[in-house]
């Protein structure tokens, strides 16, 4: 158990601490009411056995009824209260973790799988509810009951206090701790199996076509998943076995305590130090007190699990976040300046970009070219503000990127990603993401411009058709054109096009390219491409190789450098077509 982690989890609880305490008190009272019910009942019977006048029993009868109703009501209020608090905290946490992720994305998270995010955001947070439902209230209730029981017994059979204390300690603390310790590795294994299962299942779902083509691989994958999930069940069986053992031990202890308390009390009755009418009550009280211990093993395990989940979340929380300004800055110009910019993938040593110096003035049209892996896309992402450089500085209109708010940057600089995500939402919603204020006419206009309008009309619900995950209702080419449509809905000063013709069907390449070039005419344009066809008209071309700019100049300057790399590439291309 990491104290820092516990501290962090408790810090989330702070705003609600009064309520939490109240909840714990209520759970204690619930059990005490039950004790009261059975104790008064036992005394009632015992006194009645002596056949006193009926009137003498009236108080006891009222007591029995009171405790009966109090117990049920208390329990109801307590549960409602505790759950309400827990869900509130979890909701807050979900937002908090998202904001953190959003701030980090994506440069610090390279190497995390999609499944991993998902688990953290959803499952880990879900598991945390047990921390807030049980970590505080149950131990508090446990001690409260123990103390109440002890005080009560001190009036009747104080020797029974020791039995109660020892057995409750064993049942409420020792047994659960032993169970937790002995199932710890198994539970770790189960978490790991879940991860493996979900990662493999995602692969299985997305790679289904390939797997169907390879029956042997399909079988392998299915077997692998079957191995994980049967492993998961086996581990759960083992854990279940041990927890059942723990539960049974606790029940055993509770009955043993009752018998023990009776064994202590019987001689007291004989010697006249305890009135016989209270004998049954002593047994009852001790027995009921165990209700508080019975919930402990499950609670301790769940709390342990949530601590682990909390640890995972805290890891995200602790990743260093770049400081980002949220305020709007005044822009002195629309000029982008990169000064000694270096970037490397985190968790990988290789430097992707080193010492890039470059100025893009307003309205200038430039291109980054080079082979895959030469760093041109990384450069585009840095300029788009998606990634942060490790060294050097990028500024826009006289402000360093770190001083510009995300929203402002996204408004100024539009970036057409290589593979823009299509969300599981309607066609309209997917478009409106780019510009929530766009009118239906505007949507129609851009859809017509990218030649998707007819396709949309053929969809079952037209604009309201839900595009399935990653737009799988659309072909690759249509997806790309939808991304272009999204871009056209914005009105930025700077446009970055990262391989805009990628994924397009051949017949659309020229059409989309001229559409985009035309649209960017009065804007600053940064074009990233393999295709050297479209570069003739640009102001300057930067040729990248291994993360460095090796040639700069306009198309005509570059093709005239005798041993130039650009010239060489251009000639290969000319030969091909």
């Amino acid at each position: 158990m990491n104290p820092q982690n516990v501290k962090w989890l408790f810090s989330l609880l702070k705003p609600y601490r009064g309520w939490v305490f109240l909840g714990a008190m209520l759970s204690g009272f619930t059990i005490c009411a039950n004790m009261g019910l059975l104790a008064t009942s036992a005394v009632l019977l015992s006194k009645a056995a002596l056949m006193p006048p009926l009137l003498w029993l009236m108080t006891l009868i009222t007591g029995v009824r009171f405790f009966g109703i109090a117990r049920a009501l208390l329990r109801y209020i307590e549960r409602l209260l505790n759950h309400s608090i827990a869900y509130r905290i979890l909701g807050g946490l979900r937002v908090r973790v998202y904001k953190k992720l959003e701030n980090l994305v994506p440069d610090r998270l390279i190497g995390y799988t999609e499944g991993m995010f998902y688990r953290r955001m959803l499952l880990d947070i879900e598991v945390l509810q047990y921390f807030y439902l049980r970590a505080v209230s149950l131990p508090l209730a446990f001690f409260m009951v123990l103390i109440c029981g002890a005080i009560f017994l001190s009036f009747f059979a104080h020797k029974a206090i020791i039995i109660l204390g020892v057995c409750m300690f064993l049942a409420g603390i020792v047994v659960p701790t032993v169970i937790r310790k002995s199932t710890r590795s198994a539970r770790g294994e189960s978490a790991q199996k879940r991860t493996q299962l979900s990662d493999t299942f995602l692969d299985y779902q997305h790679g289904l076509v390939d797997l169907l083509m390879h029956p042997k691989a399909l079988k392998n994958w299915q077997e692998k998943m079957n191995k994980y999930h049967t492993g998961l069940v086996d581990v759960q069986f083992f854990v279940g076995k041990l927890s059942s053992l723990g539960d049974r031990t606790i029940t055993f202890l509770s009955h043993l305590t009752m018998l023990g308390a009776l064994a202590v009390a019987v001689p007291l009755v004989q010697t006249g130090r305890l009135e016989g009418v209270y004998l049954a009550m002593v047994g009852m009280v001790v027995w009921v007190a165990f209700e508080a211990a019975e919930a402990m093993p499950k609670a301790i395990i769940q709390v342990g699990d949530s601590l682990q989940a909390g640890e995972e979340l805290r890891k995200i929380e602790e990743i260093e976040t770049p400081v980002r300004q949220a305020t709007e800055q005044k822009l002195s110009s629309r000029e982008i300046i990169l000064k000694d910019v270096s970037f490397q993938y985190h968790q990988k040593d290789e430097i992707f970009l080193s010492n890039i110096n470059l100025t893009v003035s307003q309205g200038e049209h430039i291109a980054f070219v080079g082979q895959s892996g030469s760093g041109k896309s990384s450069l585009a992402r840095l300029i788009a503000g998606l990634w942060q450089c490790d060294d050097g500085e990028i500024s826009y209109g006289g402000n360093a990127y770190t001083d510009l708010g995300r929203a402002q940057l996204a408004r100024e600089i539009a970036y057409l990603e290589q593979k823009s995500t299509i969300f599981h939402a309607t066609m309209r919603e997917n478009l409106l993401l780019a510009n929530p204020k766009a009118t239906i006419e505007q949507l129609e206009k851009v859809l017509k411009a990218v030649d998707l309008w007819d396709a949309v009309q053929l969809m079952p619900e037209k604009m309201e058709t839900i595009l399935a995950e990653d737009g799988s209702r659309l072909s690759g080419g249509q997806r790309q054109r939808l991304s272009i449509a999204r871009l056209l809905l914005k009105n930025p000063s700077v446009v970055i096009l990262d391989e805009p013709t990628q994924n397009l069907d051949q017949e659309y390449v020229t059409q989309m390219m001229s559409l985009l070039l035309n649209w960017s005419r009065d804007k600053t344009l940064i074009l990233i491409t393999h295709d050297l066809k479209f570069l003739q008209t640009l102001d300057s071309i930067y040729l990248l190789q291994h993360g460095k700019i090796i040639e700069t100049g306009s198309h005509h300057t570059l093709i005239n450098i005798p041993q130039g790399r650009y010239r060489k590439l251009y000639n290969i291309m000319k030969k091909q077509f």
Partner: protein
Amino acid sequence: MINRNLISEIQKTPRLFFVSVFLSVFSAFLLLWEYWLIAKIIQNAFLDNIGIKVLKPIFIQAVVVLTLRMITDYFDDLYAQKLVGVIQKNVRSRIIQKVALLGPSYMEKKQSGAMLSMLLDGVDTLETYFRSYLPQLIKSLLIPTLFLLVVSPLDYIASVIFFLTLPLIPFFMILIGKWTKNASERQWRLITQLSGYLQDVLRGLETLVVLGRSEEQGNKIEAISEAYRVSTLRVQRWAFISSLALELIATISIALVAVSLGLRLVSGEMNYQIALFTLLLAPEYYKPMRSLGSYFHVSLDAEAAATDIYAFLNVSEELTLKIKDESFSFSDLTFENVSYRYPETKVYAVQDINFRLKAGESLAMVGQSGSGKSTIMQLALGLIKPTKGRILINGKDMHDGQIGHWQSRISYVPQKPYLFGMSISENIAMEANLDQTKKKRIEKLAQETGLSESILNCPQGLDTLVGQGGIELSGGQQELLYLTRAFYEAREILFLDEVTDNLDIISEQNVINALNNLLRKKTSLIIAHRLTTVEQVDRILVFHEGHLVEQGKPGQLKAQKNYYYNLVKGENS
């Protein structure tokens, strides 16, 4: 309350279930015995003033009975847990199997986050159903009956109270259950929605950032979380109220029993030991019903999840995949008046298609996007089934199950390749943990196709991890990987949906060379985007708006000055 689908799971392993029920009843017997002994101890000590020494054997007896009961309960748990395990394994395997049976065209419509939460969390909720709820349901019927049988000859008034109050519990439960059912189903839907939404947002976080919309998703998550909280609480409030009602009934009944016993003791109609015994039993009598109440909302969750799971498992399969190994030598693939309409759409994607692909021949399909080429490819692969017409392999209908392993004869390079979360070479071989010989072979082939050259920037070469958790490869690199796989597995037929990306010039050259090599050797069906590819094939099929409008050699088609001619002209402009 009792889900037929879930019960049918038990019928597969009835033995485990019945053993568990038997043990519960046996344990209840032991409990009665133990309380009888305790009541006896108190009676003897209190009223008859008997000393501890004389009572010792009764104490010992009580401890023995208690121990025996604990052992019984332990085994009872074990059997219940085992039953759960068997069912969970079974259901998960079936879900996994079903995914493959439904095939990619169906699965693409499903949100992968929702599927995942069905497989993991949905099946998990079955545990509480089978381990807690259902045994409790049985116990709540058997144990009170047993108690009544024991108590009624001893004290019939208490047993009348017991008897009359017990049905109130299921009555209220059913009543409340009816009210909560809808809320609970909504709840499950909301969880699925929340998880799907989060998955979607996380996957597309980068796009959201780019569009400047990532910040406000925080608010949306907050809103959904809040809706989730409110709805969960609403469901739980009902659950809590139901347990409040149950608890009230139980405690008031206990109080009633206690008071009635007391009154009869006063009037001397009652024996103290029996009264005490009955009082001790009272909480135990209501316990199974009460626990049932507390598991009740869990069972609703499980049922809601089960509704989803069985809906998925019962989707009728469009495809019948025969995984049987039949050897046949491929001679031809024939489309006979094939039409296809995607589910939920009105318009045919392709109509009345007739063509034949003979062994050793290579065909290229061309046409504008949306002309039906991809649908033809899917049909030929057997991933979807014709709405009308037949597709024959060696003259036999592909979907009659006559032809086993058709798909394993084909190397398929899709336009949208998917890389598995493993190394590049493992992706080529489609298996993990390759031995040295296979690795060597892949290395050699990767050199030949130019894959090795194109992945020079990958830190560990062919051992570089790609896909989930790994590096993302460019379109060209991915296509080269798939082509290398085609060489590696050396299958007789090649189906290729060319990557339409602008490949970088070096990759492009590599791809073209690799492809030309493959085309020379294999029967092939290609969706062509590059003119250079089309020049290599035997025949071109030209598609237009779902119809096959022209076929023939490239030169011949150009001379016809019709569809193909226009396509070529359009591309060069």
